[in-house]
């Protein structure tokens, strides 16, 4: 009982304890805020990539893709139990040259050019594999509905939002909500055929795709499957790959679907001519980088807590030195050395707990009011910490993961405990005789 009584009395009487408590609170708050926002960003990025990529992709290795019974291949894959929808595609790396109409009606060629990953698909099929319409500015089957695409006379192209946002120096164009490019503007796509001959087609922009993923919005062009074949001069019975949506996306389902698709195609497609990968495998580098960034941030911010731990150690060592006489008296009255040590351990852990609790409350409050705080900073200083157009986000993403918060608090308490060990051991090892003589 004496340990608790002493800890409570020391805590009440030592105002200096406020400093390590504030240190722990700041560390915990910083970790809660940064980890919540980082996880928010990561989850947001994942969901955006997830939305614009099929669960799985079957990719043919040959530069000319698969030439043969494409409908047969599609039907076989559709027949696999785990598969929900299938969309064959033709893809390639190309150069987009945008031609913007000037105010006087003239045409400015080569206003800018941009390398693109173009993909040709059947809109209806693709919309079933991934929720494509959700990402389009006009939100419709632009290939079919828009007059520029009708009749198959003109190549309709959907461009990425960041391409659409490009500024054109000296050219007066109508600005839309999403940028300077809009329906009806000319775009030329250049690429290489399977025999490495240059090929180009001019089309019209029919829509803009905005995913919020920089890489996709900066380098994407979508066009109908037949136009993509025509652009790459590939035959009508060819594809580069097949996007596959699963009924359920999990490890077992992916493994089963991969196995069953390979079995289904065994007699019509050469087994070594294609690869099946998940969206996560295709984006592994990016996803790993984002996750790594979060871990590095956590590691760096952990040193906030280590710093607070040093403050706890310093304060406790100071108190031990100040209380040498008291420790001797307690030992003389029968307090054990472990009992004396536990006074300082409990003291340190209490500092950690109080600091962590305050930091958690402050951190959660901060995260909950992040947008208000950002607005306040913006109003007061004119500086916007998270410009919405930079990340294409209406608000700062954040996820309050209570398990993560629990780990943060637990880490703070463990650090506080570790920081208290040296002073506690020092107090325990004090010779009671020497301590009593200390006057």
């Amino acid at each position, binding site marked *: 009982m*004496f340990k608790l009584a002493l800890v409570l*009395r*020391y805590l009440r009487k030592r105002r200096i304890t406020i400093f390590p408590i504030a240190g722990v609170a700041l560390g915990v708050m910083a970790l809660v805020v940064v980890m919540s926002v980082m996880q928010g960003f990561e989850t947001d990025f994942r969901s955006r990539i997830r939305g614009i990529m099929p669960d799985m992709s079957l990719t043919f290795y040959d530069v000319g893709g698969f030439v043969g019974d494409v409908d047969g291949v599609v039907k076989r894959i559709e027949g696999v139990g785990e598969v929900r929808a299938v969309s064959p595609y033709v893809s390639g790396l190309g150069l987009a040259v945008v031609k913007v109409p000037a105010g006087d009606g003239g045409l400015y060629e080569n206003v800018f050019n941009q390398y693109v990953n173009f993909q040709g698909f059947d809109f209806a099929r693709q919309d079933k594999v991934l929720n494509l319409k959700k990402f389009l500015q006009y939100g419709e089957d632009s290939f079919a509905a828009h007059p520029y695409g009708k009749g198959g006379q003109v190549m309709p192209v959907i461009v990425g939002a960041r391409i659409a946002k490009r500024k054109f120096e000296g050219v007066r164009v109508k600005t839309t909500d999403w940028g300077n490019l809009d329906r009806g503007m000319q775009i030329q796509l250049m690429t290489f055929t399977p025999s490495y001959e240059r090929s180009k087609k001019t089309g019209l922009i029919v829509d803009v795709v905005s995913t919020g993923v920089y890489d996709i919005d900066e380098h994407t062009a979508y066009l109908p499957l037949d136009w993509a074949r025509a652009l790459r001069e590939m035959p009508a019975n060819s594809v580069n790959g097949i996007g596959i949506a699963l009924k359920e996306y999990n490890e077992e389902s992916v493994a089963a679907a991969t196995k069953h698709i390979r079995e289904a195609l065994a007699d019509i497609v050469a087994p070594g001519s294609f690869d099946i990968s998940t969206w996560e495998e295709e984006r592994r580098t990016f996803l790993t980088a984002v996750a790594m960034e979060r871990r590095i941030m956590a590691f760096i911010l952990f040193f906030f807590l280590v710093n607070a731990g040093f403050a706890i150690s310093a304060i406790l060592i100071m108190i031990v030195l100040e209380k040498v006489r008291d420790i001797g008296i307690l030992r*003389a009255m029968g307090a054990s050395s472990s009992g004396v040590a536990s006074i300082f351990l409990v003291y340190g852990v209490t500092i950690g707990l109080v600091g962590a609790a305050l930091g958690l409350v402050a951190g959660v409050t901060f995260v909950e009011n992040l947008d208000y705080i950002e607005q306040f900073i913006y109003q007061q200083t004119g500086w916007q910490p998270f410009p919405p157009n930079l990340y294409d986000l209406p608000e700062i993403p954040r996820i309050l993961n209570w398990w993560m918060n629990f780990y943060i608090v637990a880490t703070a308490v463990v650090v506080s405990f570790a920081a208290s060990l040296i002073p506690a051991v020092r107090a325990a090892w004090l010779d009671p005789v020497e301590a009593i003589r200390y006057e």
Partner: protein
Amino acid sequence: MSETILEAVGIYKSYGKGRTYVSVLEGTNLAIGEGELLAVVGASGSGKSTVLHVLGGIDTPDKGAVLYRGEDISKMWGGRRDLVRSRIFGFVFQFYHLLHEFTALENVLMPEMIRQGVLAWPGRRAAAHKRAKLLLDQMQLGERLYHKPLELSGGEQQRVAIARALMAEPKVLLCDEPTGTLDAKTGKEIMGVLFDLGRAGQTMVLVTHDERLASGAHRRVTLADGRIRQGARGA
């Protein structure tokens, strides 16, 4: 002499190493009978306090044994010795050694708090408070229960220290120069308190250089050159 309750047998104790080596006790033998008030006198630096610390188990001898009712407490494992110390001995120091952050009442309660765990304390609290208040009343400090040590005079602080030492109902009270820092009048008051305890049958070892205090003891011994040199029957 009544039955021996505490005995030091051939105690050797030294401090330091090399040039700083000091041999304090060199085969000290001392026996304390139950209910006896023994005074240990000697010149400054003769090792009086060391004898008291070794007897009370807050210091260990280099050689020799400290027997409490025949059991060697000096060889006990740390935790067990702590337990013995909290149940058998009460200490009164020259400089009172009260905990300044606690009131007089809380200081007196401290030995009981040390003996009780957090869970057991609520059940013991009322009885402990009652006894602590009674002891402070007996020390004529009933009006000073909630005063901090620095708000009390030297004599009052020493009476709080005596009440604290008696709180755990010690079998042996070990007093190290209890009047050493007090003026003559206050010292006399404290002597009165201690002699009353001695008359009531409290076994006590008084380390002192105060002749008046020593002369009030049942027996006095002199410590010189690390050994008990002589013994005399007192009051």
